[in-house]
C-alpha cells in the first residue's frame, strides 16, 4: 500500500456522496460501509467519474443512488454479470459491485461463483446482515439455521452458506472480511481489494438493526485476524473452514492472471461487427 502522501486532500467523502438521502433505517450498518467506500476512494484519489458502482436489488444495492460515481442499479443477483461486461468494455474504469447476502448468495449465487471463476478485475463488496431486510425480515442464505422469527418459527434448520470458502473454491483472487462498525478498517480492506488485480471479494458484516437487532452485539464478537494473509489456497481453505465467521482481515491473496477481453473494442472493430450484422 505504498502511496505518496498528497500535500492536500484531492478528494474527500463529500466528493463521492450524492444529494440523495439514504432511506436505510437509522443505525443500519450500511451507513458505515458507505462511509468506508467513500474513504477508500478518497484515499486512492479516484475521480468519481472514473468509478462505476454496480448493484443488484436490496437495501445494500441502493448505494449507486447515494454516490456521485457512475452507478447502475441492476437486476436482482445479476450485478456481477453487468459489471463484468462493463469492465471488459471499459477496462480503464474502477468497477465496484455492491450487494447483499440475499442478492449475492441466493438470487445471484450462480453469478457469484462464476464471477470468482472468471477473475475479471473488479471488487465485490457484500454487505452481509444475514437477513432479507428490504422484504421485511426473511432468512437469507447466511442466516443461522436456528434463527427463530415469526416468518421462520424455530429457524430454517438449513446450514448457512459459507461465502468466503465458496469464493476461494471458485477462484476469487482476493478474499477479506470486515465489520461495518469499523469503517476505517473496512476502508483499508477496500483499498487493498481495489488495488489487487483480478476479482476481489470483501464480505462486510453489517448489522440489520430492524430485523436482526441482536446483531448490534456483533461489535463484541468480531476480532482481527492474528495471522498474515496467505497466498496458499490450501492454507486459506483450512483457515476459512475453521473460522468462527467473525474474524476480520484479509484471508487470501492470489496471483491468478486477470481475465481481460480478447476481442478488440476499437471503433474499427465495432464498425466491422455492424457491417457483418447489417441486413
Amino acid at each position: 500500500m505504498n502511496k505518496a502522501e498528497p500535500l492536500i486532500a484531492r478528494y474527500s467523502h463529500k466528493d463521492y456522496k450524492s444529494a440523495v438521502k439514504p432511506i436505510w433505517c437509522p443505525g443500519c450498518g450500511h451507513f458505515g460501509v458507505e462511509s468506508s467506500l467513500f474513504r477508500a476512494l478518497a484515499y486512492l484519489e479516484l475521480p468519481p467519474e472514473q468509478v462505476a458502482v454496480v448493484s443488484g436489488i436490496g437495501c445494500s444495492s441502493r448505494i449507486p443512488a447515494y454516490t456521485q460515481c457512475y452507478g447502475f442499479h441492476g437486476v436482482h443477483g445479476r450485478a456481477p454479470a453487468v459489471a463484468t461486461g462493463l469492465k471488459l468494455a471499459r477496462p480503464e474504469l474502477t468497477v465496484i459491485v455492491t450487494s447483499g447476502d440475499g442478492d449475492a448468495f441466493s438470487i445471484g449465487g450462480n453469478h457469484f461463483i462464476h464471477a470468482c471463476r472468471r477473475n475479471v478485475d473488479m471488487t465485490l463488496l457484500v454487505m452481509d446482515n444475514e437477513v432479507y431486510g428490504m422484504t421485511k425480515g426473511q432468512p437469507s442464505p447466511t442466516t443461522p439455521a436456528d434463527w427463530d422469527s415469526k416468518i421462520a418459527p424455530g429457524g430454517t434448520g438449513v446450514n448457512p452458506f459459507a461465502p468466503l470458502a465458496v469464493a476461494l473454491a471458485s477462484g476469487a483472487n482476493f478474499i477479506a472480511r470486515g465489520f461495518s462498525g469499523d469503517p476505517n478498517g473496512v476502508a483499508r480492506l477496500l483499498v487493498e481489494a481495489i488495488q489487487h488485480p483480478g476479482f476481489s471479494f470483501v464480505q462486510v458484516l453489517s448489522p440489520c438493526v430492524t430485523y436482526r437487532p441482536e446483531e448490534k452485539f456483533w461489535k463484541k464478537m468480531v476480532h482481527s485476524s492474528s495471522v498474515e494473509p496467505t497466498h496458499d489456497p490450501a492454507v486459506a481453505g483450512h483457515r476459512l473452514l475453521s473460522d468462527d465467521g467473525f474474524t476480520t482481515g484479509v484471508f487470501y491473496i492470489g496471483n491468478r492472471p486477470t481475465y481481460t477481453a480478447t476481442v478488440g473494442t476499437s471503433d474499427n472493430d465495432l464498425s466491422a461487427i455492424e457491417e457483418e450484422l447489417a441486413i
Partner: protein
Amino acid sequence: MNLVINTLDELLAHAHELEREAVERYEDLAGQMEVHNQPELAELFHKMAAIEQQHVVKVESLAGSQPRPLAPWDYQWQTPESPESVPVGQGHYRMNPHQALTLVLACEERAEAFFAELAESTSDPAVREMAVQFAAEEKQHAELLKEWLARYPEPKADWWQDLDDPIAQE
C-alpha cells in the same frame, strides 16, 4: 494502542479529521431524521454539524491551510472511529431529542478525553499546550450540552414501540 503524537502537524491533522468526520456524521444523521420524519432532530443534527464546521475552519486557520491528511487507518483514535463522531449503529428512527443529545454529549466527552490523553502522553510542550486547549474547548461544549439536555424530558419506557411496527409479519 498508545497515543504518540509529538508534532503540531500531526496534532492538527488529527484535530481536523476529528472535526471533519463529526460534521460528516451529523449531516448523515440529519438526513436520516429528515427521511424518517423527525424534523426536530434533523434540525438539531444540522445545528451540530454547523458548530463542528466552525471548528474545522478554526483548525485550518491554526494550521494555515488544510492539514495534510493521513490514511484513514493511520489516525491514532482510541475508538473504532474518530472520537467526536456518533458511532455507526447508534441512531434510531424513534429516538427523542434527549436521546439524540445524549449521543452528542458522549461525542464531546470522547473528544475531550482524546485530547486530554494526548496532552498527557506527548513529549512536545507545544503539542501539549494546544491539546490542553482543545480538551478545554470540548469540555466547555460538553457542559453546554448538559444544559441543553436538561431541557428535554427523558424518553418514556416504551419509546421504541411503534404502532406500525416494521417487524410485524402477521
